[in-house]
Each structure stands twice: as C-alpha cells, then as structure tokens.
C-alpha cells in the first residue's frame, strides 16, 4: 500500500519503539498466559504429548462440536449480513431525525453482557413472548428456546452493528456522483447498486463478515443460555473441560483448533482489507440526503426491521425493570439506591456502578495508549508484515476467556510478575479486548493523514516531533476520542474476563447483575433488570458521545 515510502524516511527505531509497548503488554497479559496453559495441557512428564492432538481431533465428539460450531457461525454470519445491509444503507446515505440515536442504539447489544441480553431473549422467545404470540395467530406452536435458531437470532442481534456500522461507513465513502452517472445513463436502481455500489462495498462487507464469523465461531454466553445443553460450540466445550473436568489435555487441543480457525478468519479479513485500498473517509454529512419517493418506504422498512430485531429484546429488558408486582413503577430502581444488605460481597449497586466507571476509565486509557502506539507502529510498517501484525492484535478476540483467565493464574505467579491478585489485572484484561477496536479506529485515520501536509510542514523547517504534533495529532484528536469512548463502553459491559479475576472489593456492574441473578426472589430479578437498564443507558450515552465527537468508523472494522 502507501506505507513503504514512509518507513524509508522514518527511522526503524521509531517503529520498533512504538511496537515495544503493545508487544510487551499483549505478551504479558495474553500470549504468555495462553501459551503457558496450552503447554501445561500438552506436556506429560516434561515431554510434549502430541499424540493427544490426533486423538482429540479424530474423536467423534470433537467432530460433532466442531461441525456445529462451523455451520452455525456460517449461517449466523450470512444472516447478519443480510439483515444489517439495509441499515448500512441508511447510515451511509440517508439523513433523518434520530439518526445518531439509532446508531447509538444499534451498538448497545454489542457491548452489553450476554448474561443480561440472554435472559431478555429467553423472555422474547419463550411461551409468553411475542414470537410465540405471533406463531399462535398464524396457527403454529412456536417455542424457539434451546434451539440453534435461537442462537442464530441472538447472533444477528449482537453483531448487527458490526455490519451496519462498518459497511455504512464504506457506503458513505462511495461517491454518489458515480451512482448518479449510472442512473443518468439509464441503469435502474438495482443495476446501479449491483454494478456501481456493491463492488465498492465488497471489501467492507468481507471485512465485517469475517469479524462476525470470528465472534460467532467463538460464541459462549449466547450458546450456553439460549442453546440449551444439547448444543455446544468449541468455546463452550473448552470452558466445561477446564472449569468442571480439569481435562487440560483435551481443552488445549480444542484451544489450538479454535485458534487455527480464528487465524483463518483473520487471514480472510486481511485479504479483504488489502483490497480496501486507499478509500478515504469523506466528509460524512455531504453524502447524506433526505429520503425521497420510494426511498421513504425503504427507510420505514429498515427502521421497522431494526426495531424488531434489536429493539424488542432491549425493550423487553427495560420493561421488566419497571414491571413491579404493584404495576409499572420505580420500585426496583429505588431498591438499587438502598444500602444493600451490609454483606461483604453484595455491594450496593451504586458502588458497582462507581467501580465500573473507574475500572472502565483505567481500561479505556490503557487501551488507547497501547492501541494508539500499535496503530502508529502499524502505520509505519509496510507490506505483509503490516497485515500479519495487524491481525495478530485481534487474536485475543478469538481466544476463550477461561483459557486466558486460568493462564494468568499459572503464568503470572512469580515476582516480579505476581499480578494474580493485583487490582490492575481487571483493567488490563479489559484493555486487551478493547485494543483491537482502538487500532481499527485509529489506523485508517492515521493512514488518511495527507502526506502532503507533513511534507509541507517539513519543508517549512519543522522538526519531526513538531510535524507530528501540528499535523498528525490535530487530525487524530477526534478519532482518538471516539476510540477512547468505544473502549470505555466495551469495558462497561465486559464480563467474560472479569468474572475470572474480579476482586471481592470491586465488583463491576455485570458482576453485580450476575450475583443478583444467582439467588431466588422477585427483588433480585427486579434489581438485576434495573441494573441492566442502567448499564444499557450508560452504554448508549457513551456511544452517543462517541458518535458526536468521533465518526461512523468507530465500532466498525
């Protein structure tokens, strides 16, 4: 791409220095723990037990789990792309009231903990829910709970925003003039879309699809809550083998299998990215127009389908938080304000909110610094190395939280790195997950800084650090703020990694929700729902701010 000429002019030392921090950080908090746990599973009396690999891979139960994992990921990915494409058009082309609200609402599921949304989904799909009611009207007996269909629907719900925002941003970059030209030359809407727009969207589509594939292939909470016990993905099996059976041998082989699949998906993503070429973010607003004529129907249909897919489960959750025994009211929210039960672990929910906000700030700042340095390093790299380094940063998204969590315990247990009980471990673990998103936001922005501006500044006699400060830093401020906000939202909802390392003295909101849901009683469920609604509102507010300061690329791939 356009990187090599730059690396020729900037010292290699700068590139290496930029990479040093992310490499060290991801090494300590990701690579070393994972490698340690996998090698513990695969070493027998000091020797590698490679027979295990063949043995596990050829067993019928592995094959059936792997097959289910693969097909549900493929179907989920296809369904998500089809369902979210109209929303991408809406984001990329149409100006309408409530646009930013819709964009913020779409991404809420993506950053909410699955345990929360899972229960809401159960309510929607259960015998008293709207789906069953609709089936009843049509004369069918529908109960989708504990089926693969429920899992796929939930995957569409969770990943809708990935496709809508990524492809929407690409759609914004498609020059409407080319479409207009095709129309003027007599092409109908469909032909115009197929021959002019679609080819330009293809890289973004392929990129978004490979990311959705990665998320659904490694799906855990959704499958556990909605799929029932007959359905298991590789990730669910790894969790069961590690936490219940302590069968690290089989778990390690499955981890390697999952890693191989994730690397394949990332390779696909990289190829899609390479073809994305030099598409630049355009000044967004100018390509937006008010819907006219038949487009109004399209807008209405898109908003309705988004409301059904994404809105209904969220609305169910919010409704349940107000649905007290004495009719609709604020009872559960008032219960949140009370001082809790005075027990050591059941902290008052307000304190959990404060913990989440503090930990989120630490995690987001860490992710911005580490991810920012990684983006600077990547920007300076060229060719294959850049692609490989770029997708390696996304590996943490494809490795089981239990593998990382248990890996921490055995890898980070000796001074100077006895970090197992450090309060810094939670923000660090959350930052590992947020870093890929930060890089995805900052790297295109860095690439888009016009080289001419830098050259001009240098020609006028500015030293390199001054060039960076006056040119790059100015243009990166907005994307950086956006990335910071998105990392913050991810940290607020993060549950998988937190649950293995949460300290008793600082439970986050998702941990508090989980605790409330682990005992019987109406107040417990009610408070869990109210707390989930608070989390939802916090997340949506953060995302609204992100969209205001950042651009539509945030949260896209």
């Amino acid at each position, binding site marked *: 791409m356009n990187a090599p000429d730059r690396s020729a002019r900037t010292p290699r030392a700068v590139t290496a220095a930029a990479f040093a921090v992310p490499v060290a950080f991801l090494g300590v908090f990701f690579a070393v723990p994972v490698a340690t746990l996998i090698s513990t599973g695969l070493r027998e009396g000091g020797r590698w037990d490679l027979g295990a690999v063949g043995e596990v891979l050829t067993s019928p139960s592995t094959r059936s789990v792997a097959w289910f994992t693969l097909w549900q990921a493929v179907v989920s990915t296809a369904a998500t792309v089809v369902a979210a494409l109209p929303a991408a058009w809406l984001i990329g082309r149409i100006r309408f009231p409530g646009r930013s609200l819709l964009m913020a609402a779409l991404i809420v599921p993506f950053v909410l903990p699955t345990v929360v949304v899972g*229960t809401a989904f*159960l*309510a929607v799909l*259960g*015998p*008293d*829910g709207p789906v069953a009611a609709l089936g009843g009207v049509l004369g069918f007996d529908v109960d989708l*709970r*504990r089926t693969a269909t429920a899992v796929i629907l939930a995957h569409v719900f969770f990943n809708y925003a990935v496709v809508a925002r990524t492809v929407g941003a690409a759609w914004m970059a498609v020059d409407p003039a080319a479409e207009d030209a095709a129309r003027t030359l007599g092409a109908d809407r469909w032909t115009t879309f197929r021959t002019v727009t679609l080819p330009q969207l293809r890289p973004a589509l392929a990129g978004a699809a490979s990311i959705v594939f990665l998320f659904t292939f490694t799906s855990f909470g959704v499958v*556990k*809550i909605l799929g*029932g*016990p*007959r359905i298991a993905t590789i990730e669910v099996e790894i969790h*069961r083998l*590690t*936490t*219940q*059976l*302590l069968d690290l041998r089989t778990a390690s082989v499955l981890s390697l299998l999952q890693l191989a699949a994730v690397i394949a998906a990332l390779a696909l993503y990289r190829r899609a990215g390479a073809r994305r070429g030099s598409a630049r973010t355009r000044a967004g607003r100018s390509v937006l127009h008010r819907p006219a004529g038949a487009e109004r129907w399209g807008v209405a249909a898109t908003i309705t389908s988004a409301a059904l897919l994404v809105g209904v489960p969220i609305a169910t959750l919010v409704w*349940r938080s107000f*649905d*007290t*025994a*004495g009719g609709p009211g604020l*009872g559960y929210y008032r219960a949140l304000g009370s001082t809790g*039960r*005075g*027990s*050591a*672990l*059941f902290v008052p929910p307000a304190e959990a909110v404060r913990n989440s906000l*503090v*930990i989120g700030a630490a995690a987001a700042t860490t992710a911005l610094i580490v991810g920012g340095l990684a983006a600077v390093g990547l920007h300076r790299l060229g060719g294959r190395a850049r692609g490989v380094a770029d997708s390696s940063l996304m590996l943490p998204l494809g490795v089981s939280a239990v593998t990382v969590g*248990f890996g921490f*315990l*055995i890898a980070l*247990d*000796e001074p100077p790195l006895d970090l*197992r*009980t450090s*309060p*810094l471990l939670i*923000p660090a673990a959350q930052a590992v997950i947020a870093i890929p998103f930060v890089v995805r936001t900052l790297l295109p922005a860095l690439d888009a800084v016009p080289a001419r501006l830098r050259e001009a500044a240098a020609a006028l006699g500015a030293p390199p650090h001054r060039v960076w400060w006056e040119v790059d830093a100015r243009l990166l401020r907005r994307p950086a703020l956006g990335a910071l906000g998105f990392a913050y939202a991810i940290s607020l909802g993060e549950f998988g990694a937190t649950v*293995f390392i*949460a300290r*008793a*003295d*600082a439970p986050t909101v998702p941990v508090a929700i989980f605790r409330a*849901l*682990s*005992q*019987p*009683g*109406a*107040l*417990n*469920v*009610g408070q869990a*729902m109210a707390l989930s609604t608070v989390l939802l509102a916090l997340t949506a507010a953060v995302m609204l701010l992100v969209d205001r300061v950042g651009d539509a690329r945030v949260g896209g791939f």
Partner: protein
Amino acid sequence: MTSTRRTLSALLAASLVVAACGDDDAETTTPDPEHGAATSITMLTHDSFDVSEEVLAAFTEATGITVELLPSGDAGSMLNQAILTKGSPQGDVLFGVDSTFLSRALDEDLFLAYESPALEDVDESLVLDPEHRVTPIDTGDVCLNYDKAGLAEAGLEPPADLADLADPAYAGTLVVENPATSSPGLAYLLATVAEFGEDGWQDHWRALRANDVEVAAGWEEAYYGSFSGAAGSPGDRPIVVSYASSPPAEVIFAEEPLDEAPTGVVEGTCYRQIEFAGILAGTEHEEAAQQLVDFLLSPTFQEDVPLNMFVYPVIDVELPAEFVEHGAQPQDPYLLEADVVAANRDAWIEEWTEIVLR
C-alpha cells in the same frame, strides 16, 4: 487507581480502628500473636459465598487479622484454579469445596490438616475426612421445588417422591440442570442414583426423558428461565431442581410482604451437599488460617450463614424465622459415600448425557 484504592482502604482501616477503640481499648491493642503486626489473609471462595460485613469485622476485631475474599467462579472452577496453583496458592484458606468434589481436592493434597477444637459441636456424620484436611462449615439440600399456583392450575398435586415424576401425569412439568455443568444438577443425579441404585437410575431417566424433561445449563437458566414459580419468569415448568432454602429466599426477597411462599419443597427428594473449608498448603499464615477456620465454626459466623448463602449451619444455632416457617429441613436426605461419587462421577455424567441428551 491503585493509590486511590490504597488511600481508601487505609482510611477504612483507620476508621475501623477508631470505631473499635471507642468500644474497647484493651482488645484492639493486643498485638497479633504471630508477627506482632497486623496479618492479612486471603480466603478463596466460590461466587455464591457471602458474609455480613460486621461478622467479618468482628473476626478482625478479635484477632487483628484482616480477611480478603477472592471469589473464583463456581465451586468446580474455584477448585480447579486451586489445583492449578498448587504450591503457589492464591490464598491461605479455601472455602466451598463440596462433598461431590471432595475426593479430587484430597487426592491433590491441597490442604494442611487441622482439627479445630470447635468441631466438638459439629455432627460427626458431617466430618468426611478423618485426617481433618477439610472442615465442614455448612450444609445445603438440593431438592425439587414446585410452583404452587402453577401445579394447581394444571390440576396436579405436588409429587411425593422421585419416582412420581416418571408418571405420565407429570409430563412436561420438570426442568433440571445439566449435571455436567451444574452442581445442583449433579446432586440431583446423585439423588436418583441413591434412590434407584447404581443399575436402576438409568431407567428412571429414560422415563423422565419420555416425560419430556427439560435440561438447562445451570441453576440460573433453570430457575429464572424455565421454572414458572420464579417472580417474573418467562418459564412454564412448575417443577425445578433447586434448594430447600429457595422458598424462604422467595419470601425474603419478595417485593411485597408474603404470608406464604409461592413455591414449596418436595422433602423426600433432597440430596445433601456439605461445604468444607481447608487451609491451603503453601500458606505463610498457617496459624492465622487456623484461627479463621475456628471462626467459620463459631456461632457468630454460623448464625450469619442462612441469610447470606441460603444454606444451613452445622452447629446448633437459631435459624431465621423465614427459614423455620417456609424452609424445609429434610430429616433423611440422600447422601452417597464420597469415594463412591469420586469413582463414578465422570462415568455417570457421561452415561446420563447419553441417555437424556443424545
């Protein structure tokens, strides 16, 4: 953030000391017997552990030892973490290994033996390790719970025992947890093994499958997702595998005061789970850890157990009114020998999966 937390804990500690000094000067100035300075020890627990703040503070006040809690996932997950970190443990005491996982913990030599003098108040049948590497702290009973209104609506009486559920009249009413992923699920499987014998439970589960038994991954999914008796639940199954203490919890956490629990317990279906604490080998605070184990058996802690963890104490203390009124205290619960469970657990789960799920 660390410094904020440290400042906060320093302030907290200081205020505790001040508060304590106000009460009783002599006691708090007693130096710690081990080091002459304040000792802090860590107790690994499962996620369901809880204790009142003032109870923990009372221990600190009496001994000068502060206790840090480290929740580490469910019981299985916590134990496996302890096994992986053997020799370099994350804490000094582990709380919450139960009778079904006990043999795994003992085989791994995780614990230092300690016979607490407080054990003399504990029923001998609960002491499963004669070497005292673990100490029983509480018991819980996994039992069938039923939704009173839901069963009445279906025109059904609550089942009298396990065998009743194979009756076609109860088709489509039961939801259980998967024993491969859930501790109450495993306890319920063991109850059926105890009732129908090592060669008889399989037929019972075949009958349950024919009766459309539903299987959930864990207790939360079963109770809040499928059971019709939980408040606000979308579920439609009136019978669930839960605990003897679930009806009192429904009353205690009701939105408006209830005279009667909405759910009931089938007393003849209970399986006893005993939870143990042990001192982790590799601790640098063995003496302080022993003091903590003594404290876990003290009336102060034992009285606190029901309302925080919804399990029963192992010494004779007064139970909260809700437990007496709405809870069940099964007289003769099922309990299999620990080594029988150890020898067969994995095979039974595998066989169960084959019969019920495949």
